[in-house]
């Protein structure tokens, strides 16, 4: 148990719980999918809030090299297979960054483990922006093909971009995601004492 890198048992635990995190993130987005503001400002944070419980369990049960890498990678793969190759690339970079953040006794700290969790869901909030912008030209052309005139299509895209890229909106999205994920981390710590430790899981 003294090894620093995940063994097979921990590897499987992290993988399965990372799958659950991804599934939760997808499910949480569904009821809000049709509203721009909610998708941008609320959904990533909400996923971070709920997944905080799983994240805390993971870092307490498997405080080793590999844990931080797997969580964003699994979520990133979901983006890859839905066509957002850049988002996947960013999640892959984040996977390495998160590992680096926790090197040198990160798991012994009370506060440091909250950072990778918050970063993951902050990147998620930016991920939707990226996906949208990647398909900018397609949107314009489809708008026109579906009967809009070119000028209003451009105007619609411009206001859409204006919304996603407005600095104050980016700031709100990032702050909301960070705040809710950190709240999720705190919630996870509470659940650790309430459920996981008494249940003998950790």
């Amino acid at each position, binding site marked *: 148990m003294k090894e620093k890198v995940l063994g*097979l048992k921990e590897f499987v635990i992290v993988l399965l719980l990372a*799958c659950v995190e991804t599934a939760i993130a997808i499910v949480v987005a569904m009821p809000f999918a049709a*509203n*721009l503001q909610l*998708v941008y400002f609320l959904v990533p944070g909400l996923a971070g809030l709920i997944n905080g419980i799983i994240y805390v369990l993971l870092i307490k049960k498997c405080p080793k090299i590999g844990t931080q890498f797997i969580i964003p990678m699994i979520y990133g793969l979901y983006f890859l*297979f839905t*066509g957002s190759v850049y988002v996947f690339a960013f999640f892959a970079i984040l996977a390495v960054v998160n590992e680096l953040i926790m090197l040198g006794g990160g798991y012994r700290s009370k506060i440091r483990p909250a950072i990778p969790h918050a970063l993951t869901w902050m990147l998620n909030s930016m991920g939707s922006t990226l996906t949208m912008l990647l398909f900018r030209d397609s949107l314009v052309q489809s708008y026109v093909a579906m009967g809009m005139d070119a000028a209003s299509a451009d105007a619609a895209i411009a*206001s859409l971009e204006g919304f996603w890229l407005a600095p104050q909106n980016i700031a709100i999205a990032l702050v909301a995601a960070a705040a809710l994920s950190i709240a999720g981390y705190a919630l996870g710590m509470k659940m650790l004492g309430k459920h996981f430790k008494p249940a003998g899981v950790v």
Partner: protein
Amino acid sequence: MEKRKQSYFRPDPRTWLLLCLLGIASILLVHSEIGGLCLFLGCLLIHLLTGKANKILPYALYYLVFYGIGWAGVRLLDSNVAFSVSSMLSSIGIVGRKILIPLSFATALAGEATGSLMAALQAMRFPKAVGIAVAVVLRFFPTISGEYRAIRSSQRFRGIGVGVVHTLTHLPSTVEYILIPLILRTTKVAEELSASMTVRGVRFSGETISYRPIHFSWKDGALCVFMAVIAGAVFVLEKGGVL
């Protein structure tokens, strides 16, 4: 005669992976409605050629549903109704149809036998841990919804989250009562699964010989070239202003 041949051809897992990557590249490069439709039809043809004819109707239906959502979104957008909703609907409708292409190939990849997948990854010189991870994820992901349903049906006898109003008014506790058993159960499955893998010699190191031979044949190559040619042709025609 030809039909028989088609039903027997099962592409190599690497072919699905390549097709998936080609699909991703093509939807990023092709922007027009008609071009997207051509790509989608090409994708359906590949599924047809590989004996997945049963998938064509559902994919076509998804395409139509997304088209409808996109169309409604654009109508609303055009009449300046609720920008935040209409722009999302149109985006979902338009991007959703594009995503169908790589996603359909990814689904075919996920449906391959685990042994073939691991062998393919091994042949591509991925570390063994990647193969194990892919196998574990593919084996576990489809079971999550079943676990969720089992928890929800038990909860109905305890008066937890019964009906929409009750669920919304007790949202935090309902989420807790769903999540905690789900996590505890997942942890237990993970431990039992890894124990059963361990005793059968699954480990990160050591040599493995795959039971299933994998072979990237000329037919596999042809499928990938076919997809690349469609994507390339549509892209060129679009650039040339034909589409």
